């Protein structure tokens, strides 16, 4: 075995000097959350870096809904699931149809619609929140899951259309032409040629929309207020309303809430990195 040279050791040391702070910076807030989740209240509040008696008791309280703030935990969890799934499905439907129409069918005015969508994508979502809140009131949708679903679809679709349009432009035109020669109708081309080829991008966009909806706090807390209608992030925010918030339960619930998106992200990372980062900024 060759001993590493002094220069190599120096390079390695310098890399570690960057790597260790990066690791700590990334992990501390997450570790702190995890620490609270497995600590009894006394340990959590005494600033210990590892609890004297690690316990799963907090999870038991959450799963048995044994606290005032948690009495609707399952309903709220289910609300989050339903809304995220609905936003994912609707965004995929709307954006795929629009991208197919603009990119493959060259519909007149498609370019204008694409630019309008892109424009919406760049307007910060928080700025649209105030008028959106009033609009949903005017439509009579406040406190209804549809208000959040439709708002999130509005926010997710522009980017979805844009990414899917870029991806469809890369499919060769000859495919459509060959299908038309064989007598395929437009719908058959969409279903049998277009959708299968677009699968990787569709997975990426579906995941994007689902995560966006699952993670959304601002719109959820503006549009939904009834305890049995709200999603988990709003319920987490409501913990802060009390002066003596049960922080260990808040962090436990937050930990449970953070697990699904992290799992989804890592499961689809392959698609996300290819489909989303390439689309996010074209240099």
């Amino acid at each position: 075995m060759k001993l590493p040279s002094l220069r190599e050791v120096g390079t390695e040391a310098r890399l570690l000097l960057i790597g260790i702070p990066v690791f700590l910076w990334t992990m501390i807030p997450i570790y702190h959350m995890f620490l609270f989740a497995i600590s009894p209240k006394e340990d959590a509040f005494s600033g210990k870096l590892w609890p004297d008696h690690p316990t799963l008791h907090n999870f038991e309280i959450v799963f048995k809904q044994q606290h005032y703030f948690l009495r609707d935990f399952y309903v709220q969890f289910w609300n989050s699931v339903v809304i995220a799934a609905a936003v994912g499905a609707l965004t995929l439907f709307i954006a795929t149809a629009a991208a197919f129409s603009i990119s493959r069918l060259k519909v007149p005015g498609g370019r204008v619609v694409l630019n309008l969508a892109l424009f919406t994508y760049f307007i910060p979502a928080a700025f649209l929140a105030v008028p959106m809140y009033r609009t949903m009131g005017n439509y009579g949708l406040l406190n209804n899951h549809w208000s959040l679903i439709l708002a999130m679809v509005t926010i997710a679709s522009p980017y979805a259309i844009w990414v899917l349009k870029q991806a469809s432009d890369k499919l060769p035109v000859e495919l459509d032409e060959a299908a038309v020669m064989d007598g395929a109708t437009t719908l058959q081309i969409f279903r049998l040629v277009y959708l299968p080829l677009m699968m990787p991008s569709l997975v990426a966009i579906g995941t994007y929309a689902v995560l966006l909806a699952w993670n959304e706090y601002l719109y959820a807390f503006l549009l939904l207020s009834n305890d049995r209608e709200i999603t988990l992030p709003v319920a987490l925010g409501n913990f802060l309303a009390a002066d003596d918030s049960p922080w260990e339960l808040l962090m436990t619930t937050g930990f449970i809430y953070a697990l699904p998106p992290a799992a989804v992200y890592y499961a689809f990372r392959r698609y996300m990195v290819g489909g989303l980062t390439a689309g996010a900024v074209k240099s």
Partner: protein
Amino acid sequence: MAITLSGDQAIPGPPLSSRLTPAQVWGIVLLAPYLLVFLAFVVYPVCYGLWLARAPANYVALYNDPIFARAAINTLIFLVIGINIKMLIALFLSGFFAVQRPWIKWLSVIFILPWAVPSIPTILSVRFMLNPEWGVINHLIFSFTGDDGPNWLNDPTVALSMAIGVHIWKSLPFWTLILITGRLAISHDLFEAAEVDGASWWQKFRYITWPSMQTLYVTCTLLSMIWTLGDFNSVYLLTGGGPADLTHVLATLGIRYLRLDQLSLAMASIVCAMPFVLPLVYFMMKRLSR
């Protein structure tokens, strides 16, 4: 009648539906869902909002509201200082993560976590760490020095810096990832040639990496600035705009007015931001829709 007399040139064209090919009809049908969403949830709210904010009195009220001025300054600090620090770190780390080592590969997987997990629990986690009485930071300060730590979120400057820190924590992985893809696109031959010529680390960055990444870097910075204008969570969940409404940014200020039932002020504050946002948006659209 004139039409029948003047022969076949004047015969009105076939109805619209038969002038379009079936493919174009399908195109319109498939585009319709998005157009409906766009009209109902973008065009209508925006027009309605502008109509609500039409009275000049709103802008006078904003002008006289010290909280608005403070929020505008905070937003500028957030964008100009916060985003540039974030992008510089991202640029630096993109070089670090481009180094081929097994452990760096693993670290890059972990490094994505802040971006992959929702921001609410993690921001609240930081909020409790900064709690003056019970937070772990002040506990550590006490056990090492015997002194009570500062009341972090009670000082507007510190609280805003912490909010910027939380924002950086959350979005740094995303931008680093994008800059890594930009860096990996640079031909490796260039670096090898520079290595042979004995170029220093700085020379390689200055003459190879930066020229090929500067467009991407500037695009990312502008895009991040636009998006950060809408960053509600980092400020609202960490400081709630406090102490004494001194750490608001425009995103949280609009919601504050909304909660105080001053909807027209909320809209007016957003309209005030438009002269800054729209040029950025226009620039980004130019760049992306080529």
